[in-house]
């Protein structure tokens, strides 16, 4: 997209650049670029926090921030693509005869190079961000291993069951104490299910004969929903249950009321 205009009277690079931005199509594309970029940034910053459930764990926070910030980082790229497209749309030619021949630009080395390196950097940001998040979750999991409570989750067509071995209780509601790391050991009694405590932002499939593990630390008191995220047959849609993140004393009271013992 460098300057290929017919004018040959711009001797210095500075003047060439200002001349480039004074061109009508470039000026309009630039304005469109800022408009689209800002729109995408606003979409990312406003919509996801509004749509997504209340953040009740660190994992949920990291999912939400990825969605918000990746949108923001992508915004300039979306901005360029949509600005050029909108600019072309505004320049449209109508009628039944082809438009006049355009400039014969076959390629532009610097632009292709900048674009390729730009996408590479963009991909690297996404990769490094993701790997750091995965790593920090793994580190947190090993640090929290000793203080964690364990919940044995069993999915069966079409019910979730929760067994708290240390507390000696078995329920169909998932109640958890706030601020205490929890390890979910998940298995299935029949076909595949996927254990999804929505507000906690984690998920893991339930398989027959093998145990899968996911971990989280609830950070806020409030109700949670547990859903099944893997099509498991007839009543898949209704395979859900409720629960809550509660204060430690409320949790202990609930455990006792269920006939269990607090440690």
């Amino acid at each position, binding site marked *: 997209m460098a300057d290929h205009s017919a004018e040959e009277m711009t001797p210095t690079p500075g003047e060439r650049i200002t001349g480039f931005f004074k061109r009508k199509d470039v000026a309009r594309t630039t304005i469109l670029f800022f408009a689209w970029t800002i729109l995408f940034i606003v979409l990312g910053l406003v919509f996801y926090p509004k749509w997504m459930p209340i953040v009740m764990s660190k994992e949920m926070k990291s999912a939400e921030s990825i969605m918000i910030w990746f949108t923001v980082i992508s915004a300039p790229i979306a901005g360029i693509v949509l600005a050029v497209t909108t600019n*072309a749309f505004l320049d449209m030619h109508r009628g039944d005869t082809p438009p006049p*021949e355009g400039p014969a630009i076959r390629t532009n080395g610097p632009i292709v190079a900048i674009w390729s390196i730009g996408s590479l950097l963009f991909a690297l940001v996404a*990769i490094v961000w*993701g790997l750091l998040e995965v790593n920090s*979750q793994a580190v947190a999991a090993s640090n929290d291993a000793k203080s964690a409570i364990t919940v044995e989750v069993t999915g069966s067509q079409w019910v979730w069951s929760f067994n708290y071995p240390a507390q000696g209780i078995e329920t169909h509601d998932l109640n958890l104490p706030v601020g205490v790391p929890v390890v979910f050991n998940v298995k299935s009694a029949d076909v*595949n299910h996927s254990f999804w405590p*929505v507000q906690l932002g984690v998920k893991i499939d339930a398989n027959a004969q093998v145990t899968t593990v996911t971990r989280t630390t609830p950070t806020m008191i409030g109700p949670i929903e547990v859903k099944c995220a893997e099509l498991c047959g007839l009543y898949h849609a209704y395979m859900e249950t409720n629960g809550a993140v509660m204060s430690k004393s409320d949790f202990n009271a609930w455990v006792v009321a269920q006939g269990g013992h607090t440690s």
Partner: protein
Amino acid sequence: MSILDKPQVSSRQIPNPKQSLITRLHMGTGTVVGIIFAALTYYGLKSMYVTYTDKVADPMTQHNNNIILLGAMFAWSIGFLVGIGAFIGPWRWLIGKDLTDEEILYMAGDGQGKKRYYKYCTDHKVVGIQYLVGVMTLLGVGGTMAMMIRTNLARPGAHFVTPTVYNSLVGLHGITMIIAMIIVATGPFGNYIMPIMIGAYDMAFPRLNALSWWVLFTAIPVLCSAWFLGGIPTGWTAYAPLSIQAGPGMNAFLATIIIFAVSTAVAGMNVTTTVVAMRTKGMKWNRVPIFVIGSTISVALAIPAFPTFMAAMVMTSLDRTFNTGFFDANMGGSGWLYSNLFWIMGHPEVYVILIPGVAVLMEIAPVFVRKPLFSYNAAILGFAGIAGLSILVWAHHMYMAGWSPALNGPFMVTTEMISIPTGLLFLVLIGTLWRGKPWMKLPMLSIMAFIWDFLIGGITGIYLSDVPADSYLHGSMFVTAHFHFTLMGAALTGAIGGLAYWYPKMTGRMLNERAGYISFWLVQIGFNVIFFGMFMVGAEGQPRRVVDYAAFYKNSNLVSTIGAYSVGIGMIILLWAIIHSWTKGVVAPMNPWGAKTLEWTVPYPVPLTNFDELPIITSDPYGYGKGK
């Protein structure tokens, strides 16, 4: 192939019907023989494998039922091919009486008018039209199911269909659309246009070309039979062990995929061979039209991908018939083995769908902007990069399967890398648009819509490829919305653009423009409304594939359903335009768009061997524009 040695033959001699069986075979005889084969197999197997219909819960009975049904379905497919004459050529070769030149000409449909569309016709243009009609039928069936799904989801409470029917709708909509989308561009345009574009008399293997279509054709009734056998409960992914537990309808799904995989293998080999071996003189690799490059990369990617799907289906069939336990954890098998085999096909497959759609639009863009394609090399590298990386990313569908959490990181890296070649595709399109005055016809509008839809699909794909975000989003409506943006918004929009572009060459008429515009806006606006609604409920936590949902999600779901009706109406208008213009449209000139590729140098109807004399190519077809 002797037809290729004699392009000058234009006689209308039909071989003596008493001598040749070929002249008496068509779809009808195929159907009759297919049904006879199926019936014989059904009753034959039924007498061997005892079933107790009053004890359907008995596993032995279920296994035996599955053996009988699968046997009958494969017998139908083979019987149909026998009955339509697919094996006449090999048989005659076997007994040492190869087909005569007249018979070969007859098989190419010479001088048979409309009848040849119902025959085992080796002419690539006939096969292209057959694929086009097949694709439109499949899209119609799949679209109807989509409307039923959205109608049911308009209000909470599952008032429209029962959960059994809903689950079947979801699965059959999925597989019908996947099959339709795999062939949507490479079927009609890859067969009809591509050989002319590269300056060939026909495909490299004309009989295999006919075989690929008719094999696919036999899969359609098998797929439809799933409805009458109780449907499928598994979704199109058919995860084990649910697929092993599933009822008789599952057999139809398995047989469909196995038959379809044969068709794609045959078509894939044929297309790649044709492009490698049959380009006309002077068409070096850097002069090949980008649509041909894209289609070739797409089918070449399908060649290694689909066999794993077929293997997974064969193994599921064996589990369901002979209790082999490949995927049954209770017998030492593994459901994860199935998921891996499925997605080793499944992720290349989405690019098999996407790449031809993009390539069509890249072919169109220079024509309507009157500028050369911007950076042809970047386009090729973009396609090749996507194809190469796509075989290394399959387990991003399994981040949350618990299969190998330690592999999540590596698969995240390869998946995010795909944004680099994908970025190149965007660059090629916007680079071509830059400083041009796009001729705002239907194909050009499709390019604009594609850019928007694919951008949204791409950005949402970046979150999904990131493990911590996927741990929230996986299995939600957000995923459904994401892949509809890429497959429908991008690939189907590309194919519709291609249809509007090549319609004059394929039918000799111009597509009704007014209907085309109305349909375009209804479909594109409706499409965005549907899937923005779905992004919203997905982000709010509604799982996908649910027959019912909490009242909390009702407004966005209603919005999605309204959008779906807009798409439905738009598609009906497009269908009307296609059918109406085919016979009543304005007669098209030879080159209505002023394009420079070879297909526009031949008249309509395109002669049997396309060219009297093969053209010689001296440059790529993108020499538009002035200056430099």
